[in-house]
């Protein structure tokens, strides 16, 4: 159990994320096939496999920020598509906000808010557009609230994962206004957004890494 985000937790989070993507890439691809182009799972799979390799090459004393920034750069270099630059910039944004060897819950929430900001700056999506933002925003908000309310990292990260999952599910009835799914117009309604789904998976990985 961890109480702060340090180098170990950053690594653990990314490893848990990579494992989750590996386990569930087919599901992500299937969601993307329904309203996109059917590559989201393989995109993230390729990206996180490269992240794991890149992490091994990091110096042993790298800060959590360096770890996350490196992961973000790797995603940008390896994923392509919409999700590559978006997730890559998100992690780079998170990493840039975490220069110290360890960060408490409040600092982590702030860093994730910065990451979300990077996504929104790049992609221009707001909540309700049926994108990863629909899971990302409520997860960050849940962390912020939990930090304000004095929750532990364990409780907070679980709440964030639940919020992200609820946000992902809430994309089902929406009509997409950003990304590829927007081309379908009303036909995008009734499907869960693949990017929101993978965002929920990343927040669940954080919660899992915290308790393990």
């Amino acid at each position, binding site marked *: 159990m961890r109480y702060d985000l340090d180098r170990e937790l950053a690594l653990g989070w990314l490893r848990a994320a990579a494992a989750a993507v590996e386990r569930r890439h087919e599901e992500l*691809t*299937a969601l993307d*096939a*329904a*309203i*996109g*182009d*059917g*590559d989201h*799972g*393989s*995109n993230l799979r*390729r990206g996180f496999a490269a992240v794991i390799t890149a992490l091994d090459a990091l110096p042993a004393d790298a800060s959590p920020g360096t770890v996350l920034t490196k992961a973000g750069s790797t995603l*940008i*270099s*390896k*994923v*392509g*598509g*919409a*999700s*590559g*630059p*978006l997730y890559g910039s998100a992690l780079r944004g998170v990493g840039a906000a975490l220069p110290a060897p360890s960060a408490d819950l409040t600092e982590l929430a702030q860093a994730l808010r910065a990451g979300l900001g990077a996504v929104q700056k*790049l*992609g221009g999506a707001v909540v309700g557009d049926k994108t990863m933002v629909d899971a990302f925003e409520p997860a960050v908000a849940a962390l912020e609230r939990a930090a304000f309310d004095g929750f532990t990292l364990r409780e907070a990260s679980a709440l964030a994962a639940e919020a992200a999952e609820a946000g992902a599910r809430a994309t089902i009835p929406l*009509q*997409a*206004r*950003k*990304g*590829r799914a*927007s*081309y*379908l*117009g009303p*036909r995008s309604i009734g499907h869960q957004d693949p990017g929101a789904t993978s965002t929920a998976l990343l927040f669940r990985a954080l919660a899992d890494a915290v308790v393990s």
Partner: protein
Amino acid sequence: MKKLINTPESVLDDALTGVAAAHPELTVDRENHVIHRADAPRPGKVALISGGGSGHEPLHGGFVGPGMLDAACPGEVFTSPVPDQVLAALRATDGGAGAVLIVKNYTGDVLNFSLAAELAAEEGIEVRTVLVNDDVAVEDSTYTAGRRGTGATVVVEKVAGALAERGAKAAEVASVAERAVAASRSFAVALTAATTPAAGRPGFDLPEDQIEVGVGIHGEPGRRREPLRPARELVAEVVETILADHTLTAGDEVIALVNGMGGTPLIELYIVHGEVAARLAERGITIARALVGNYVTSLDMAGFSLTLTKADPELLELWDAPARTPALHRP
């Protein structure tokens, strides 16, 4: 899934091996996934670069060569290239006269190319970007990612490539490319769905008597489903849809591209072209130049797209200018 591949993961690498073996006139940078002219960089020449997900062959690699592209950046199947790739292409072709990126308007392509452009600018390469967004099936660009780039890409790469070959400045090349984009509209129908190697099954299920109308080139479903009808009626609808969004009137000339999506026999594309010519003739619109074949494909999808580019003397002259690429030649 029935595909002539080794593994879904190695499709792009293995295909680039084949491209390298088949085209000694091109250089394939296997590590960075870049196809460029063997004589690059050409000092003083604007570098014309494009790229996008793979699965649309011959786009873009098939259009690399004198008179068209200096380099192409093929991403994974249906996935835009990464910034590193585009940067490698920019470096390999930098002749000191700047570069023009031809980018099809998809979120992923726009983001990755623009990250690359930023990086290149930091290295002192002046980069201009031209967005291709010709697909009239995307009706409302306020509530979408905007119109997709499809068949017009061929026209844009041809005319911009011809101008770049003559030593025009980057601003001129970008400007004629933008003119070609503005003059072009496309619309596509699918008879079957594409199967990506990663997904392993068709992107959508389509009953035997139904077609998807207003599809893109990435195996995504279209705007709506319709019953399959005779080519004559189908083409009439496609022509109508394009003309409703185009400023074409009697007496105008067009470049017409009847493009196969990969799974449609050429004989059917010629049938489609015959119908396109008849429908346009009824409205007094002349096909000044025609291109019929598989140019911007969607893997094994059956169907076609029609692109109409309003022609003017400059565009026609550039369209006719010499080109020597694997997929498009002009003497």
